[in-house]
């Protein structure tokens, strides 16, 4: 087989290459420069290659391969099809930027630790590639668990801190709950026939009841990894604990493998999608979207805030997928394809801009040592380049045209506007309401990123808690900037040339569900125009949009300069006649969220301490907690503790008692087994 012309062999080569890089980092253990100068750049190159192979695979028919590895009689099956190709492209291209960034980011890491990080990092990448390539449940679960473990070790890089350890434990716990559900789902699909290849699972005929059970197991199993409510609790703990490139990798790519699994199992393996399932996905998706953004608005830790935004964006992806399932369930494949495309497009977009934002947060942390927004301020003057890239990411995630976040939300809106096709009146009027949720979430996201950007980068430096001025080491280093520039360019490419990606995703949809966009849409979508259904129904041309807005803005500038002047005088800001203003009088992150607390108060668990009127030492405290901890996690934890304390009664620590147990067991066996 010609290796370079076969995307499957090429992708396999890249995945193995990542493993080799991982192990090679260990050998010259005393030499941190190796990991930095060789391992991460090689990993980035491999990522670019993987993206190319993935892109190629989208346009080719599916390829399969059997590796003589694994258990006897249970070899590993590999397969690459357009869906896997698309996700491999996502993995390769986004990880390339993050690897380049890591080269710069880990420059002060002690040598032994860096070798370990490099090992886990590349094993993590390789395991994600294997998840996408797997064609049997066995390899899939092995890769899935490797991915969970590698990322667990990356999360607890700073394991000296107890908070990091408990965040890692929570992540591992929820990851395994999800894994059990996925395992059970494969069990249901398999139905006792002894063949765990995806081909056999695909061919299985399920009764509607068992199909629904399989759907629910897959949805919640993968949802735990994706971070949908109420299984999202690990995200805001694990992301801040991990080093920033790792957060970018987890939030940008690992959550997407869960989306991949969901699409693979629900659309492909189970097949025969029912519209009721779509409603479940939509309801959870809408809740996840709103909940994620509302909690993000309450955060002042930058990385926690970004983690809650990942929850929100997973919700947006679920809205696209859910609408797709509703339309397919009602027998409208073209509209279903549009929803699927919208969801997958947002998957790619989120990987790019959230990766970028986490990297930006990493550069801030690196330069100033700060994660708390309330201590930042005026960073645009210290780190202008980071500020520029972060602004692109912030505009993209706020779904503002002409960047990429807007395109996928636009496609989701267009899917919702297909609602008149549906036969069922209730579902028909529900879909636009989900679109309204999306609109609300989009506007709230814009508010949240005005807050982040305004507080961190704009304004004047707020003094840190203890009065010392913020120490900084200037702008992000060169490699860090290259990594961010790569992803920022991705925001523009995905935003300005969406049609090529639309056609690519259409191919994914055709191969997966058999349905694609209408002929009119495909012929109408060229380089310039994005047409989801038909040209007279809706069209959008980001490139024209972008050119026009740049031209008129420049024109305004030139006209003003030409007819008037460009004179500027500098003065102190206006102080309202009160000259003793300090930088502490600026808005803080918590103050910025105050209107939201006011409007959405009941959704939060708030603990507020206000000083009394004649308090000699007045203090003000506000604590906002996730409600899900109290109705779900803590009761479950208490129940688990109660049960284990009861079971612990069996354990007496005396040999005679244990012998008695053995004796009783034997008696019981003698009675029941003849």
């Amino acid at each position, binding site marked *: 087989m010609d290796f370079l012309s076969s995307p499957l062999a090429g992708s396999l080569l890249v995945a193995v290459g990542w493993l080799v890089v991982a192990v090679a980092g260990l050998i010259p253990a005393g030499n941190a420069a190796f990991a930095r100068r060789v391992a991460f750049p090689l990993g980035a190159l491999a990522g670019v290659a993987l993206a190319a192979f993935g892109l190629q695979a989208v346009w080719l028919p599916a390829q399969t391969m059997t590796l003589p590895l694994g258990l006897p009689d249970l070899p590993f099956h590999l397969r690459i099809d357009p869906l896997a190709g698309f996700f491999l492209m996502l993995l390769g291209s986004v990880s390339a930027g993050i690897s380049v960034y890591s080269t710069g980011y880990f420059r002060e890491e002690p040598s032994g630790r860096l070798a370990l990080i490099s090992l886990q990092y590349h094993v993590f990448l390789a395991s994600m590639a294997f998840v996408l390539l797997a064609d049997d449940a066995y390899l899939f679960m092995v890769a899935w668990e490797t991915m969970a473990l590698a990322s667990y070790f990356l999360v607890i890089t700073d394991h000296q801190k107890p908070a990091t350890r408990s965040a890692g434990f929570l992540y591992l716990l929820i990851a395994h709950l999800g894994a059990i559900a996925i395992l059970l789902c494969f069990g249901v699909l398999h139905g006792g026939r002894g063949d765990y290849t995806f081909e056999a699972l695909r061919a299985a005929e399920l009764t509607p009841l068992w199909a629904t059970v399989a759907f629910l197991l897959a949805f919640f199993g993968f949802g735990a990894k994706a971070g949908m409510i109420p299984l999202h609790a690990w995200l805001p703990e694990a992301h801040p604990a991990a080093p920033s490139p790792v957060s970018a990798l987890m939030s940008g790519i690992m959550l997407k493998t869960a989306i991949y699994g969901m699409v693979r199992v629900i659309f492909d393996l189970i097949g025969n999608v029912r519209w009721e399932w779509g409603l479940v996905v939509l309801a959870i998706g809408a809740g996840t979207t709103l909940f994620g953004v509302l909690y993000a608005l309450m955060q002042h830790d930058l990385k926690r805030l970004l983690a809650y935004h990942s929850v929100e964006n997973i919700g947006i992806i679920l809205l696209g997928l859910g609408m797709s399932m509703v339309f397919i369930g009602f027998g409208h494949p073209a509209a279903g394809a549009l929803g699927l495309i919208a969801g997958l497009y947002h998957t790619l977009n989120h990987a790019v801009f959230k990766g970028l934002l986490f990297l930006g947060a990493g550069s801030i942390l690196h330069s100033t040592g700060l994660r708390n927004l309330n201590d930042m301020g*005026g960073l*645009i*003057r210290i780190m202008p380049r980071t500020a520029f890239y972060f*602004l692109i990411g912030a*505009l993209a995630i*706020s779904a*503002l*045209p002409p960047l990429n976040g807007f395109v996928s939300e*636009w496609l989701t*809106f*267009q899917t919702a*506007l297909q609602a*008149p096709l549906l036969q069922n*009146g209730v579902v028909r009027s529900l879909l*636009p*309401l989900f679109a*309204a949720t999306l*609109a*609300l979430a989009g*506007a709230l996201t*814009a*508010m949240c990123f*005005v807050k982040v*950007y*305004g*507080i961190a980068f*704009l*304004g*004047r430096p707020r003094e840190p808690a203890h009065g010392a001025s913020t120490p900084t080491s200037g702008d992000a280093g060169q490699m860090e900037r290259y990594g961010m520039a790569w992803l920022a360019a991705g925001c523009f490419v995905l935003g300005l040339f969406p049609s090529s990606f639309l056609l690519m995703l259409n191919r994914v949809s055709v191969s997966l569900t058999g349905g694609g966009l209408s002929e009119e849409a495909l012929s109408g979508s060229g380089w310039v*125009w994005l047409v989801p259904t038909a*040209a*007279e*129904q809706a*069209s*959008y*041309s980001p490139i*024209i*949009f972008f050119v026009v*807005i740049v031209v*008129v803005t*420049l024109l*305004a500038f030139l006209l*003003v300069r030409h007819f*008037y*002047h460009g*004179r*500027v*005088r500098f*003065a*102190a*800001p*206006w*102080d*309202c006649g009160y000259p003793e203003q300090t930088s502490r009088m*600026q*808005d803080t992150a918590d103050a*910025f969220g*105050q*209107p939201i607390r006011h*409007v959405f108060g009941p959704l939060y668990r708030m603990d507020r301490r206000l000083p009394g009127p004649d308090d000699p030492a007045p203090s003000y405290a506000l604590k906002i907690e996730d409600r899900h901890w109290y109705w779900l996690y803590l009761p479950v934890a208490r129940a688990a503790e109660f049960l284990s304390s009861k079971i612990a009664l069996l354990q007496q620590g005396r040999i005679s008692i244990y012998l008695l147990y053995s004796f009783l067991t034997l008696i019981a066996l003698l009675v029941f087994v003849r």
Partner: protein
Amino acid sequence: MNLSAGMAFQILQSLFVVLAAPLLVGWVNQCRAWLQNRSAPSILLPYFTLAKLFHKDAVMAHDASPLFRSTPYILFGCMWLAAGIVPVLATDLPFAPAADIIALVGVFALARVFSALAAMDIGTSFGGLGARREMLIGFLAEPAMLMTLFTAAFISGSTQLTTIVETLAHREFAIYPSLAFAAVAFVMVLLAENARIPIDNPTTHLELTMVHEAMILEYSARHLALIEWAVAIKLFAYMTIGIALFVPWGIAEAGDWESLPLAFAALAAKLVLAGAGLALIETLLAKLRLFLAPEFLSTAFLLAVLGMLTHFLVRS
């Protein structure tokens, strides 16, 4: 009609909107003065103000960033773009397919985000206050606006503003219940989005109440002029969107050049009425407390949703 004539018309129409927008503001101010028993300023006053501001030297805070300096131009560019999308005189706009109603809402959001960011740039307490309040109003108004537009999109089966207007202009003169709900919601959103009473007061500089003015407090001279002008274009654009959706009759069809004078007269008459109506609303209502704004706007949202549901009910 060939493309170059269309392009020429497109450019002329957006120039017309940009140049005529301050006149509408002048008219609203004049009506308001009459209604409040004051002697009215000239209808051309906004133009004089702009000219005066352009001639002055800009005064800027010491540590203003490039973002602060470029925002007025970006705002102006966004509004100019919006002026190019909305069918004002005729539905024949070659640029319109590049951005539909969702993108139009996106343009307004882009402008809002940039003005809020610029407000926080200097680091005064007012800037942050204004930005926070503006984003609060924005996130409440945006979904309501989208739902209103979706109602029209469902009726005409398209999100292109030109197609919507062509469809709606051809319908017989009857009251659509869904559009009636949407119209009320739209007026409420218009008031909020354009910093008008009862949500905001464009003439106040009282720290307890101001929203939009708090954001632009640090701007002066040409930057302030551009922002004021952009605000005028925004009001003009919103009014013409409302006219296009709810009273589109009289607008010229594609290629129908003879009816342009008639379209112009119809537009002028509608804008005169709409401006007077806005002045009337601003005179009759009192400004709401900031935290009543969510109630006001969620009412608008619910009305828009109700309109949409009515459309589905009546249709089925």
